Structures are given as C-alpha cells and as structure tokens.
C-alpha cells in the first residue's frame, strides 16, 4: 500500500495525470479559442427559449404573430399553404405543362407529366408570408448528405391573386426529374434561403435538421438566444438589440436584407433597379441616413404588422424637414405630405411585386423612374 508521503505522491501523480489529460482534451475540443467563430448564430445548438413565454412580459407579442416576419416560413402542409396550392388548378400556364398538386393528406405532392412520364416531388416548405408572394420548396439530400433545395416553379403572387413562374426561373422548364419541377439550389444556397426565413436552423455537416427548424423570423432571430433571460425571469439581459448602435442595428436587418458590401461597388448606383430589393443598400447611401441618426426602426416597427404601423407616414420626415423650423431644408414643391411618392417610390421589378426604393433622394422623374 501507500503509506504516508507515498500516498501524497500518488495523489499528486494521479491529479497531475488527470490534469494533463484534461488539458490535452481541452486543446482539441470545441470551446478552444476561436471556436465561437464557427457558424451562423441561428445554427447554434443551445440557448434558445420557448417563445411562448415572451408574451408573458412583452406586450409586443400580441400583434407580432400577424407580421410578415413571423409568417415568412411554414410547413407546406399547413392549411394556409394547402389553400393557396389548391388554386394552382386555376393557373392555365401550369395546366398547360401538365402540372398539378395532389393533396395526399400527410403530404403534398407536385406532379407533372411531360412526354407521358409522371414526375413527382414532395413539397416540404412554404416560403413567404403571402403579403407579396409565396413560393414552395422541396428539400433533397445530396450524395454527401447535404440538404439541397428545389424551388418550385410556380409562385403565388398576392397582387395577381394567382400563380406565375417563380422569379429567376427560366420560361421553359427543364427535362430532368428534378428540373421539370423547378430550380435546384445546392446546399449553401439552400441554407441561405432557410436562414433568412427562420429563427433557429440546426445544421449538421451541411444537413439541415428540418424537425429542429423554428420557422419564421421571430423574437430570438433579432434578439438572439434568450434561454437565460427567460430562465432568470428577465434578470439576465444579454447584450442585444436594445444596446446596439444604429449601424449595428442596420446590419442586423441587413443580414437578410443585404449590406452594400455584398455587391460590387459599381452596382451601388442610383439608377440600378437591381438594388432596390435590398433596402439597407440604398438606405445607407441616402443623405437622410448619412446626416441623421435614423435607422431601419425609425420608420419600421418590426413588432407590428405593416398595415398597423406608421411606416409610410410623414412624421419621420418632419423630424428634419419641418416647415415650421427655418433651419430645415424643405421640399422644393412646397409639399409636407406624401413624401414617399416622390422620394421613395415603389419600383416594379421584373416580376409582379413592387419594392420601395430606400435610397431616399430627390428624383428628377418621381415615381417609378427606375423601371
């Protein structure tokens, strides 16, 4: 046995060896310096709160469920999605291609039959709140287990109250069993699509774990994982949106609505309609943005539906362009209402959706000058 000092030596030896092994392990496991650089925050595996508890303390939750953000992604089998898809049978162009959607109860199957060969595709997800448009997507594993997506060829446009070919897809459908249904996106683009339409997106080695997706842009998508905040009943308040400066705030929106740095510098010009869709790009070029403290949330309250908020009003503009203040620069036409019609017109894209031009400026030919 180990009497006296030998016992002490044994204890020290065992402790030292265990310490060495633990140290060695810590050098190789996640948690090592730089480990937090990995991945997108929405693919974080832990730290998420059950958002049903948000309403207990935050009254914004009341209206939030009606916002476009909250409903920007749903399962294809949801009633709203089924209701829209049932109208595909009224789309003549789709019928001409022999396309239809079969509701099989537990799943929705898109069928098309060129040359008498029937091609079937299970529709999995429904992208878009329906305020402007809704596009369906199917998820497909590739040979390495990554999740690819197939963007369905037919999109519901609210302005049309009907279906048309999804923007960006060719006029003629493809030949293969996949391309006959729409456009295939590889794993990284698929992940990008989901990441802007969900709050939690578990991804393991390129494979999206669909059962773990928290669909829609909800509380924690902007405010970050809030498990500790909920558990501590609000005592712990992780650094987040409320403490961010305005540039950080705009960049949070720009994660999905895009930053100017994401386009070549030559593209960022006032006569380029392609950037209208990416609001922060234009906004950051605007004199109003550069010369004030405004941010996206100056006009938009993301907690309320668009029709319930005063984002299109003029009170925001009057903060700096008030006719009652002699020091302010005023409208050349002497107007103090309807500012957006001239300075932020809605621009028609190549598909039946309009986007508001956020490059706030004096347009020589107001309204739709970029078309």
């Amino acid at each position, binding site marked *: 046995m180990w009497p006296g000092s030998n016992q002490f030596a044994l204890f020290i030896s065992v402790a030292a060896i265990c310490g*060495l092994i633990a140290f060695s392990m810590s050098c190789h496991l996640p948690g090592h310096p730089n480990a937090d650089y990995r991945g997108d925050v929405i693919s974080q595996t832990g730290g998420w709160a059950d958002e049903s508890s948000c309403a207990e303390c935050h009254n914004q939750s009341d209206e939030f469920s009606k916002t476009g953000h909250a409903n920007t992604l749903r399962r294809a089998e949801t009633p709203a999605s089924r209701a829209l898809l049932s109208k595909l049978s009224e789309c003549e162009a789709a019928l001409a291609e022999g396309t239809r959607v079969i509701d099989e109860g537990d799943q929705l199957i898109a069928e098309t039959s060129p040359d008498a060969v029937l091609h*079937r595709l*299970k529709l999995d997800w429904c992208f878009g709140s329906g305020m402007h448009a809704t596009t369906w997507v199917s998820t497909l*594993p590739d*040979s390495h287990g990554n999740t690819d997506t197939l963007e369905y060829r037919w999109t519901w446009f609210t302005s049309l109250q009907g279906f048309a070919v999804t923007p960006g897809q060719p006029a003629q459908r493809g030949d293969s069993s996949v391309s006959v249904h729409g456009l295939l996106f590889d794993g990284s683009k698929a992940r990008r699509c989901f990441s802007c339409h969900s709050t939690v997106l578990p991804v393991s080695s390129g494979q999206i774990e669909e059962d773990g997706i928290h669909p829609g842009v909800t509380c924690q998508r902007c405010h970050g994982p809030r498990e500790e905040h909920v558990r501590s009943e609000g005592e712990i308040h992780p650094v987040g949106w409320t403490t961010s400066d305005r540039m950080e705030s705009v960049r949070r929106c720009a994660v999905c609505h895009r930053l100017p740095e994401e386009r070549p510098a030559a593209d960022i010009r006032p006569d380029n309609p392609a950037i209208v869709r990416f609001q922060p790009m234009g906004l950051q070029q605007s004199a109003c943005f550069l010369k004030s403290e405004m941010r996206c949330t100056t006009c938009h309250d993301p907690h309320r539906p668009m029709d319930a908020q005063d984002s299109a009003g003029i009170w925001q503009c009057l903060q700096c362009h008030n006719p009652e203040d002699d020091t302010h620069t005023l409208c050349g036409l002497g107007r103090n209402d309807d500012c957006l019609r001239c300075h932020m017109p809605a621009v028609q894209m190549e598909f039946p959706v309009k986007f508001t031009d956020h490059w706030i400026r004096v347009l020589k030919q107001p309204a739709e000058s970029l078309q």
Partner: protein
Amino acid sequence: MKGHRKVQSPKTWLAVSVLLVLSTNFCWMERSSRLVAPLQTSILAIRPPWQVPITRWPWTESIATWPFALFATAVAGLAVFVTQETRSKGHELWKALLLAGISLAMQPDQWLLTVSIVLLCRSLAVGNTDSMPFRSASLTLMALILAAMTTLDFGLAWAVALGLFISGRPSAGSADFVHSLKTKGTVCGILLVSLVFLSTTTPGFFPALIRPISWIRQNHALMPSMSVFTGSLPVRSGHILLAFVIVIQVWQVLRSPSTAWTVKGMCLLFAGIGLGCGRYTVVTAVVVFELGKLRFPVVSESTSGSAGPRKFALASLTMTGAYWGWLLTVNGMSIPENPSQPRRVDPTLWRFDGPVMLTNLDHAIDWQGAAARKRFPVLLDDRWDTAADHVPEYTRATFDLLEGLREFHQKPVGEGGYRIFLDQHQPLIIAIDSTQLEPIRRLSVDPEWRVIAIDAGKTVFGKTTHLLTRGQAVRAGELFFQLEWPRPGVSMQLDGILALGTAADSRAVSRVLTAMRLPYAALRVLPDDQSIETEAARCWAYVELAHRAIRHTGEPSLLDQCRAVSGMNRLRRTSVTTAGEQDQVRRALQSLTDNTVRSTDLKKLGAGLMGLTPEQEVRTALTNGDFANAERATNDIADVGVRGFYKVLIQSPDLTSTDLLDRFRSVLKSATLPSNLEEEAAFYSGCLQLEVGDSQGAYESLTSSDLINPHSRLAAIRDLYRSQLNAMQ
C-alpha cells in the same frame, strides 16, 4: 552511467525503426525531406518573422534537404540511440513504444531539434557534468547553437537546457563546475540579458522563442498538425503511442520521492506541451523519457545477458513485418509503379502568379519552395508566431468558407461571411485540404471559383473572374471533362493539374473528383487493387452516380443503386472507418433511399408488398439493398430473360465493371427480354462502357437504348450522357 551497458540487439531495433519510417511514405525513393524550415513570409504577417538563421545562406538549401531514405535512417538512428543506449530491466515495452512512436510520427523539421535536445539531456546529466565538466559545457553550447541555427522551435531546446541546468545538483563532495551555485547565477544572468537584448533588437525573435507556449492560442482546425489525434494513420498511431509513453513516464517521475520537484515540474510542463500540441509530441516524449530514464532500475549483469530482450526485438521485427503486410494488402498501400508520378502538383508550372489562401496552414510548405515563394505568397502560413492579430479574422473567414457561409451573417461572436474577407484580401487561389470534401463540393459549383489542380493534399481553386487564372481553369476543365467523358485517342496532360502519386494519393484524388460530381473521372483514377480503401472510394463514386440517376429520372438506376447501397452497407460493417466516416455512410444510405423525387412512392409500395408482382418486389428490394429478398423474388419470376436481367443486378456488387458489361451483353441476347428491360439493359451497358473508357461503345449502347423507347423515364439522363459524349466527337 555506472551499471548500464550497451544493448545486444540495436541492429534489430534499427531495422524495425527504418521499416516503420519507410511505411509512412511509400515513395521513399523519390521523395525528399526538408530538415530545416524554409524562409517564410505571409501577406498578413504583422511583423517580419524570425527565420531559421542558416536559411539565409543559399548554399544550405542543398544540405537541408535529404533523400527520404537517408532521413529514415537518421530517424531510426536517433530512435535507437534514445531508447537503446542503455537498457533498464522491465521497461523494454515502453522503449519499444517510444521507438515506434518516434519512427512513425517524426516530422523532418523536428529531427534536428530532437537531436539537440537529446544532446542537451545527455550533456547536462549530473554524472557527466561532474566527471567531464568541460566536455559537458561544450556539448551543451553546441546543442543550443544547433537548435538556434536550424530550428524555429529553439525555445523548447533552451527551456530544456535551462530546466536541467537549474534543477541539477552536484553530487555530494564533488566540485561540479557546471551545477555550482555561482555558475548557475552567472549563466542565468548572462542568458537573461542576452534574451532581452535579442528580443528588443531582433524582429520576431521573442515570438519565435515562445512558440512552444503560444501554440495554445492557435486554432487546431486550421493546422491539423497541432492536434495529437489527427493526421495520417502512421502519424496518428505514432502520437497515440507517444502519448501513452508520456503518461507512463510522468507517472514514474511523479511517484519517485527522490526526484527533485523541479524535474517533476519540467516533466509536467513538457508533457502538457506534448499532449496538447501534436507538433511537439515527439520531441517532448523524448524529453520526458530522458528525464524519467534515471528512475528506471538498472539491470543487473546476471539478467542483462538473458535472451528476453533479443526475443522481444525479434518479435517487434515480426510485428513490423506483419504491419507492412497489412499496409500492402488490406490497407491498399503500394509502391508506385510509375516512379516519375509526382505526389504533389507543382504550382510553378502555372502561367500566373497570385496570393494564396489556405484552409490547412500545414500546406504552407507546398508554396514556400524557393521557386514558388515569390510567385504564390500565402495570406497566412503556419507561423502562428507572426500574425496573431490577423488569426481571428482569417480563422473566421476560413470556417465560413468551409461551411459555405458566403454572405454576411451574425455569429455567436461578431459577424461573418467569407465573401467580404475575400474582397478585402483578393486571393487568386484558394487551396482546400483534399480531405475537406464538403467544402470542395460546395465551392466547385461557385461561379467565381474553379478547380485548377488536385493532389492528395490539396484541391486548388482559381478565381475565374481573373484573366490570369482562367487559362489554367480551362486546361483543368478540359482534363476533368476528358476523365469524365473520355475521347478516344486524346492524351491527357496531368502536369500542373493532377498528381496521382501513390495508391493512397490516387484514392484521395478520386474522392475529390466524386465530391466535384465527376464520378466516372473518380473511378478512372482509382488504383487497380481490391483494398478496403479503394473499394470505399469506388463506392462513393457509385453513390454519386446513383444520385445523378435519381435526380434525372426520378427512379434509381438499379445498377448504380445496387453497387452503392451494397458498398455503403459493407463500409458500415467495417471497423476500418472512423465514427465520422460511419456518419457519412449513414447519411449516404439515407440519401439513397430518400423518397423526395421518386416517381414511385416506395414507402407505399413497401407497405403493400403483398400486392406487388415478383418483378416489382425485386426492384423495391434492390433499391433498398435487400439482396436476400431480391434473390427470393427473382426466383419467382417465370420468364428466363427477365430473371437473368435481375440476377445480373443482384450479382453486380461482386463483379467488376468489365464482367458486368459481359453479363449485360449476354442478357441483351435473350430473346424473351421485354422491351422496357432491353432498353434498361442497353442503358446500363452504356454506363459500364463509360466506366471502362469505351466512349464510342457507350454512345452506341445509349443510342440503341434510346431507339427502343425515346420517351421513357431514362430519356433525360441518356440525353445528357449522349450530349456530353457527342460534344467531343
């Protein structure tokens, strides 16, 4: 070294060690090993790096690079010297493990450092300093200078020397000059002043000095050599053996009441470094072994002459022979048939220059040869001591690149998106580790980047928007096209694009080609052997082919599906694959039986098998890799021709492509084969002809399949194949 005596079997141990070193690289006749780190600089380095002093003299370039065979002998000599110079009773096993570990894991640029440290340990041993103080001091000085002049990690050697120097105590009554208190004080003072002087006057000296500690800030994912348990199989095995030796030695030293606490502390410190950083595992194992050696009981003369150690040595030699046998058979290693086949792509053959971004910083050496260094500067190299401020930025961008996170996004800490980093630093080349298959797969469909070269170590992407890289991208594209859709009579120039090297290298390149969605090209570069590793690479190509068929036709190509599912099931059962590989296999199997784009709902078919015809049952069973049920149901098929068709498919996993082709030709001769199966058999024949390189025959078979039914489900994939084959006519 009273009581110790020379060993009886050094030649046997030398043979064991040489064989083990040679087993780490089957191109030993061609490959050379660089013992001294080359001149290094990276674009993001924030300060001029400390360079190994002797590299400043160009004439040293030739003596710093040794033929691999000579390096193997040198490593073996060192390993035997360390482990066998003295023998201690009962510790033959530990010494054998240390010898094997050193032989398997020794990296060329660590050899001189290890030599220096062994010299230091021997020269500063108390007995030596006592009896031969002048010789001891000279040897110490020589070892310290050797380390400083030839290695980047001289700090480790200096730390060993300092530790031994401080911890050493002169024997009672002796006048040990080296270990006397007065000498210690003087030497420590001089050393401290010198270090301060050198640190303040010589750029990069201090960061280089503390490299053995500053590695802890480096992320192992960017530099796998930092990790103890990654790397090639021999290196990994060597590290595991050495880690075992380190732990045992530390245990011995700590338990010893007579060992000074300073020595125990040194042991713990070096063990921590060795177990934490794979780059230092060999050298610290040697240090810990040398420190612990005095603890071994000395063998008595009466037992030392026993035959036990010799038998043990002979047994080790036999085991090494068996290991070689395993490598050459099961593991599929082979000595290259064509010795001129390079193992690495030579970038100096390219007609452009430009900055390089590496996802594995261990590959920096490939870009730092004398000819390549100026033409292809790397953004960041493996010198973690030079660019600490840029490491987080680079790490973030590299992780995003590997995960496919191109655009701006929020991270748990900070923001990400590799595109912004690339825009800022404008690399023309991205070199991804060839084992990082998913990133390669993702980037290979990025319109901004094209694969311009592949070898077993790295897959190189060039920026297509740059005029200079476009030429190389076009040449590489033509070669890949030729490999996928071979044109008769066209010679392939691999120089500067593909390096197939050994059998293992070819398999690695094959996996990359599969990841790039070029399965026929992947099959074409595989070595002609039946090893598990080659079979695995072949199966992955079949998985890719099976997916291609499903996505084009909506139904599985039973030929590819059978071979893929059967191969994946075999891989799942093998113990050779790691847990990560097992997960990949599981996902591949899942993806093959996924039902998303199936025109026939297999789940429903499966649920109602009772109502199926025998032929439908066979097809369902083959799709799921259920060969027993497929065989049973095939026997229920009355028609001989139909039965023959499915029998060939059932046997397909065990047949070569040539044999399968012959079988399908026989099937096609059957008079009773219905037209739908005739069409399918002709399609499979075309696919097999593509596999074996008969593009003309493939075109004809596909055309004959098309003539039978031009509007069938197979039309889409058949048209694709025919258009690709037609494009080169």
